[in-house]
């Protein structure tokens, strides 16, 4: 009996110790939060004189993290806004990958979404837009008429769900053709420009190949996306490119088949690297940097990538992807694929509503957008004010290219659910080698897209 009592006493002591540990922690937390509150109150008192919105805790999630070129800009700007307003940001930003997307989707599902979210405005946002968990720009403007009035509404990136603007964009992207100038010099050809036709370009590629170089650096096994876009674009126009075909034999379906046939032809002519069907994107990019390949079609984010990868950035430039058909070379792929959302959860809380609007207005001011965007596209009515002295030769070429465009279209791949891209994107080696017939691959993608639609949408 004594032993039993001893055991019970021991259990009690353990339980009390655990509780005490927790209690200490709690009390430490209390002390910390108290001292933080004291500090904040002090700050609030100090800032309160300047602005009345201080003291609000705003949960913010963005993709400005990790290796994102604007991660530091975001950190600085968010810090400055906190200092100015006395509000606090609980930042849960993370690198934009599938895990991050899953986290955002799950947060909305379980009702723990952030107050402000910087996120994609394409298909990735469909679930929470459909669920009515974010506030449209029009609704925000009913209370704050000047909200995002420095932006062109038509460029803000409307939701694919209802074609309504929900997010305020910062910096967008463009896709262009990067050029290794020394390879072209060795091959005795000029850098393509806005007047270079598709046939001229094929001739240039042949000359580059004859000189012993790879004309186009691309891994068709891993990243065929850029060439997929432009070869299809060549059979459409800026206002029709980003529309999904309904059938393989309608106008858009035929353009897809013709575009993929152009890619196949380029592969058969040997314009891609010899290991394009087994090499990775990193390998082909390195061959471009090392002066073994002449052209690389990629996005505006590659400007920084090239600047980082080479000691001789002046050896590189960027130009338009040559065109054929209705499309002009100066019609490019680009857009603003992300923006700041205010969630309904924050909107329903008057304090958070005020702070969220203040934060987004600060982060999307002309000055801030110019700082984030540099050479990339923006939706600013007055355009980005970039100090060209800060740009490299490659950056300046990018800016010049963007300033002279005649048309811009979103990437059509953004209209395709990731799950349905597989037969063309991951199946590109089979397409270019003729193992799969092009119309069959296109039909498979279109069937998958149709199956993917919810039953009510099909009706």
């Amino acid at each position, binding site marked *: 009996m004594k032993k039993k009592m001893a055991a019970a006493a021991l259990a009690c002591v353990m339980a009390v110790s655990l509780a005490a540990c927790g209690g200490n922690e709690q009390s430490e937390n209390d002390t910390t939060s108290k001292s933080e509150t004291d500090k904040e109150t002090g700050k609030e008192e100090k800032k309160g004189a300047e602005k009345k919105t201080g003291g609000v805790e705003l949960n913010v999630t963005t993709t400005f993290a990790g290796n994102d070129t604007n991660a530091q800009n975001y950190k600085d700007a968010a810090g400055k806004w906190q200092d100015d307003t006395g509000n606090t940001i609980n930042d849960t930003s993370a690198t934009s990958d*599938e895990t991050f*997307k899953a986290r955002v*989707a799950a947060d909305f599902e379980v009702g723990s979404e952030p107050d402000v979210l910087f996120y994609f405005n394409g298909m990735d946002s469909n679930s929470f837009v459909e669920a009515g968990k974010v506030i449209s720009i029009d609704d925000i403007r009913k209370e704050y008429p000047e909200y995002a009035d420095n932006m062109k509404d038509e460029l803000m990136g409307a939701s694919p769900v209802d074609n309504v603007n929900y997010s305020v964009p910062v910096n967008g992207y463009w896709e262009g053709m990067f050029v290794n100038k020394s390879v072209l010099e060795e091959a005795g050809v000029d850098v393509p420009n806005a007047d270079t036709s598709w046939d001229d370009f094929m001739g240039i590629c042949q000359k580059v190949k004859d000189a012993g170089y790879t004309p186009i650096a691309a891994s068709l096994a891993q990243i065929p996306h850029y060439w997929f876009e432009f070869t299809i674009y060549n059979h459409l126009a800026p206002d029709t490119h980003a529309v999904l075909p309904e059938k393989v034999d309608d106008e858009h379906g035929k353009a897809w088949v013709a575009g993929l046939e152009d890619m196949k032809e380029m592969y058969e002519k040997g314009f891609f690297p010899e*290991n394009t069907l087994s090499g990775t994107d990193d390998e082909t990019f390195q061959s471009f940097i090392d002066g073994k390949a002449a052209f690389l079609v990629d996005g505006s984010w590659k400007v920084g990538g090239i600047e980082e990868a080479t000691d001789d950035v002046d050896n590189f430039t960027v130009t338009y992807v040559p065109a054929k058909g209705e499309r002009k070379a100066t019609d490019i792929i680009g857009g603003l694929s992300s923006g700041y959302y205010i969630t309904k959860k924050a909107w329903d809380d008057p304090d958070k509503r005020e702070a969220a609007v203040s934060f987004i207005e600060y982060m999307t001011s002309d000055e801030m957008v110019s700082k984030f965007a540099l050479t990339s596209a923006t939706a600013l009515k007055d355009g980005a004010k970039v100090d060209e002295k800060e740009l490299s030769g490659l950056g300046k070429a990018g800016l010049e290219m963007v300033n002279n465009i005649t048309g811009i279209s979103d990437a059509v791949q953004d209209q395709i659910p*990731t799950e349905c891209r597989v037969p063309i994107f991951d199946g590109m*080696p089979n397409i270019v080698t003729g193992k799969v017939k092009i119309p069959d691959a296109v039909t498979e993608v279109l069937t998958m897209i149709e199956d993917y639609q919810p039953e009510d949408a099909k009706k």
Partner: protein
Amino acid sequence: MSSNIYKNKKPLIFFLAPAFAFMLIFLYYPFVKNIFNSFCDIRGLGTAARGLNTPWYANYSRMLSDENMRTALINTLIMILVTIVGQVGIALLLAILVDNVKHGAKFFRVVFFFPIVISATALGLLFNLIFLYDKGMINQLLGAMGVGKLTDWKDETHALITMMIPVTWQYVGFYFIILVTGLNNISEELYEAAAIDGATRFQRVRFITLPLLYNVICTCIILAVTGALKVFDLPWVMFPKGIPFGKTWLTGTYMYYQVFNATDVDYSSAISVLIVVLGVILSKAVNKIFKERDY
């Protein structure tokens, strides 16, 4: 009375409960949920299911006609064979050789075990550099020997071998250490007695070492078979998306691809169920074939 406290097993439950709850929440619940998910229609990571598939077993019937899945299963079975022969076989050979070395045994143990402490991702990057098409180590060596044309070690012809070599090499050290430990448990007297009776070195290995090491070898084979089913990181780093032409899929890499690249969450759930079923069947079969013996 005094020993009653030890007979009362109830306090044990109190101490076992946290671990059990942990397993329940983080292993068994997700496992059961995953089985359920494999019958549902899920349109992306983190999103709720939109109901059951039509028909509810659609993912399982799809597996039967999925060419990539077939490739993944065949490659995984090849991987199991390569693992048994390559990893356990080479480890056994090295262990016996090191056991017979008089000087430097410790040095060899460290050298052979070393790959285990390097992460699989780092090894993948290392072997990527070795097998790289342009400027890769092997192609540079071949170039130095006068071979002008570069060889694509990741093309259809070479891909599977290029993938299997580093995976095999990576775990040889693991089984080597287990086998060396087993060898150390064999009494020296047996070898001495056999030597006095005139047994050659080969006969000593054949009639003393191998029979006495049988149980350890069985354990190694079971570990190798179950391990081969889960191989993922190194092949994924070297051959993302089953390149080239989907020839290098393994069940593990194909499941990952379906979740994170194709975002087909329910289909990947079905693949993971298949991996578990396959794992249970194969480990049972291996246990039966390589039954441990009592001496």
